[in-house]
């Protein structure tokens, strides 16, 4: 067990339960599913005037405001951790800007192409027992592992 979980298992299980409870709360109160990656497409609709544009499809127009509320909530949750758990000390990554930027671009393209990310497919879609989510999740986990191992050996 120690070799599989060098940092212990407590934080992972408690954190995961809280993630599930947050997503459950949104569903019980509003019936909405908490996928995050659609926000990147739906937010562009605020800047798009062309009514035939992909960005202005009905599903993006209809969900663009509550999706921003979900993002505000996510940031607020991180801020609560910063204040109440971490004593105001920021957690700052040392990854290079190049990796974050180009990684981010691939994340943006890929999640929109697959219509979901770890929250949308990995948690919500799988919890809806969607076959497409199960396929996407297995694929991105496998590719993520291969690419991370390759990146580690190259960089």
């Amino acid at each position, binding site marked *: 067990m120690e070799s599989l979980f060098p*940092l212990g298992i407590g*934080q*992972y299980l408690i954190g*995961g339960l809280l*993630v599930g*409870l*947050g*997503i*459950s709360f*949104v*569903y019980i109160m509003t*019936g*909405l599913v908490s996928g*995050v*990656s659609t926000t*990147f*497409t739906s937010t562009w609709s605020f800047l798009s005037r062309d009514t035939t*544009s992909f*960005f202005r499809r009905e599903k993006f127009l209809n969900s663009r405001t*509550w999706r921003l*509320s979900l*993002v505000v*909530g*996510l940031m607020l*949750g991180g*801020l609560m*951790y*910063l204040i109440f*758990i971490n004593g105001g000390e*920021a*957690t*700052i*990554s040392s*990854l290079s800007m190049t*990796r*974050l*930027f180009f990684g*981010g*671009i*691939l*994340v*943006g*393209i*890929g*999640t*929109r*192409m*697959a*219509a979901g990310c770890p*929250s949308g497919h990995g948690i*919500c879609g799988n*919890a809806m*027992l969607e076959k497409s989510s199960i*396929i996407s999740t297995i*694929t991105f986990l496998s*590719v*993520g*592992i291969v690419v991370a*191992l*390759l990146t580690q050996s190259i960089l």
Partner: protein
Amino acid sequence: MNIKKHIAIIAGGALFGFGLAYSGAAVPEIVLSFLRLEDFGLVLVIGAALVVTLVTYQLTPKLIPKPILNGTFTTPSRLPISKWNVIGAVVFGAGWGISGICPGTSFAAIGMGNWPILIGIAGMFIGAYVYGTLRNKGLTGIE
């Protein structure tokens, strides 16, 4: 959408984001340690979140007729499996393996004061713009 719903979504999102922060999933280095098979904690995070969400999604619509703040419960779309589910997941998996960031965790990371992740979020917006532009130029896709 009324203000009560927005407040509920912000509150649920805050619990979601706090859980991501507390679990370590919002720290890209911890995600990368899982993807390099050094620490399997992320499996527990996704597993615990999935079990809770599965119970909620499967049981709630059977127990109450509609959400507490009205509306309708989102039901499974049951879209057929598309090649784009695989191709998109390959592209996402590559970005995830390089950077350790994904959409939900990035926003929680900003709350934790991890400002370099803003660069990753900018990349995600650019990526979604590139994808939408490709769709406008005739690329087929899921949505």
